[in-house]
């Protein structure tokens, strides 16, 4: 005895799939953009040695991604999850792109 009609079941499965792909995929994109930005900022603004900034930012990525995963599955409104994750990824990526020339100069000068 089926509790739901077939179209409703497929709609629900689609919603689940969309949520999983969004949280896992866009969550990683957002996390990686933000830690890339953090590495640049730590090195350029706070004056940390470059390799130190990279390792600090990358290690905190796992904790940030975990927080995003838990929030992404707890937040009931999917549009909110999309907005925050996409926004974070795009803003982070753009800021990295904008700040990158500052970081590239030392390698070009030395090499």
């Amino acid at each position, binding site marked *: 005895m089926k509790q739901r009609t077939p179209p409703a079941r497929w709609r629900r499965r689609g919603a689940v799939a969309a949520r999983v792909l969004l949280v896992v995929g866009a969550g990683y994109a957002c996390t990686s953009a933000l830690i*890339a930005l953090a590495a640049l900022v730590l090195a350029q603004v706070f004056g940390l040695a470059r390799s130190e900034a990279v390792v600090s930012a990358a*290690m905190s990525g796992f904790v940030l991604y975990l927080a995003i995963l838990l929030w992404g599955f707890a937040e009931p409104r999917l549009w909110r999850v999309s907005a925050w994750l996409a926004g974070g990824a795009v803003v982070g990526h753009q800021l990295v792109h904008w700040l990158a020339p500052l970081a590239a100069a030392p390698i070009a000068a030395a090499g």
Partner: protein
Amino acid sequence: MGGTFRQSMAWLHTWAGVVIGTLLFAIFWMGTLSVFDREIDRWMMPGTRLAASTQAFSLDRAAAVVGPLLPAGASQWRIDLPTERVPAARFSFRDSAGNPAVRWLDPARYALIPDQETLAATGFLFPFHYRLHLKWMDLGYWLVGFAGMAMLALLFSGVLIHRKIFAELFTFRPHRRLQRSSLDLHNLTGVMCLPFHFIITLSGLIVFVGLYFPQAHLAAYGAGKAAKAAYTAEASGRYTRPAAGAPGRLVSLDGLVDRAEREWGGGRVNFVRVWHPGDADSYVELRRSYAQDLPMNLDQIYFDAGSGAVLHRFAAAPVMGAQRLIAGLHLIQFEHWTLRWLYFLAGLSGCVMIATGFLFWIGARRVRHAQRGLAGVRVVEGLAIGAVTGIVIATLAFFAANRLLPPGASLAGQDRAGLEMAAFYLVWLVTFVHAGWRPAAAWREQAWAIAGLALLCVSLNAVTTGAPLLRPASPALRAVAGVDALLLGLALLAALGARQLGAAPRPTAPVARP
């Protein structure tokens, strides 16, 4: 996903567990075995069960013995000094094409040990743990990373959905039906070792931080090989210089070891690597041992091979040092038997946690799925049996093949080491087929198979390498006795589990979840 926070976390915990659990068990099982990988190596490579050497190891004498083995144009060779857990010296080199090779050396007699023709635990079980032997596009690394993040989410969601988390430490009702006792054991092992499960998972991910989040160094250094080389040199130290193309000499390696150990204030040398051997611009790399430390230090000194002049020194900067400390928490390369045993037992509790999670879910959904004609439980159960009892059976088949295959064995283009791996994968496949064919009885039957195979492995070791001693004379023989003891313990646990799985009646109605 549910309406409330707790319902969403319950949904996440259930589905992450069902989907990723099979992969997670494989990673946890291989990781737990890797705690004793050097000891399993002694068991699988009888030629390396050497007594501890009484004299200091002379690298110059060793270099004279292994020198003739080096092919012309070899790009590097290396000797790892013997330690308490690895009583033989390990000689490895790369030929001009970059292919690696390994030979073992008896440090007391300075004689080569015959090729053991096996990958053993450090070559097969341990790499399976972190990359699943899937090399194509680093797929294995990424699957393990994905499983690691899922594990963190499972741990947090598991804690968030429990109402009486403290009481669960003391709740285990083995005489209730299987579904109830599985859930009790799942909660108990989860809660009791919760700090371990969290730290081991996060630290494991942090070991490969540069692989999982390359965006950090790509942003700070840029893309391309030069940028990557600059990052590697600044973060983990690396000195290179090209070969001159003219012949050169090699100074006394023992002298270099003395100088390095004095400079490190008594720190021992881990291994010595000679780059561009025989060349005028050859150089010698010495790295510091971390057998007595928690962080896996990056201390290294490079000497010119001809003159012995210091070319480069490196030690990790503070944040990199923190990453090395966290990596050390995961890889436990230090020599401390109590801690090693605790890690092993905690790892086993993680395996039990994952397995009982499956048993609970399958038991809870079995009736509902049967009523609605859904295949979910059948599919998950088949996969779970193959992934849990199946991988244990496959591992025991790997050990048995190691004892049974004669030296020089080869078949269908696979050498002896390849045939051992083939035994593992083929037997694993068979356990999946068995699980799909007889799901109702498969858990119990495979548990009995584990008990039988474990006893067989202990017997094979006794028959092929001499009867086990009650008082092992050397650390290596103690290691072998330890592995035999663990195999016997596994047989006992599997037999108890088989009786539990056979005795508990099938539930007639789903039990309400807490």
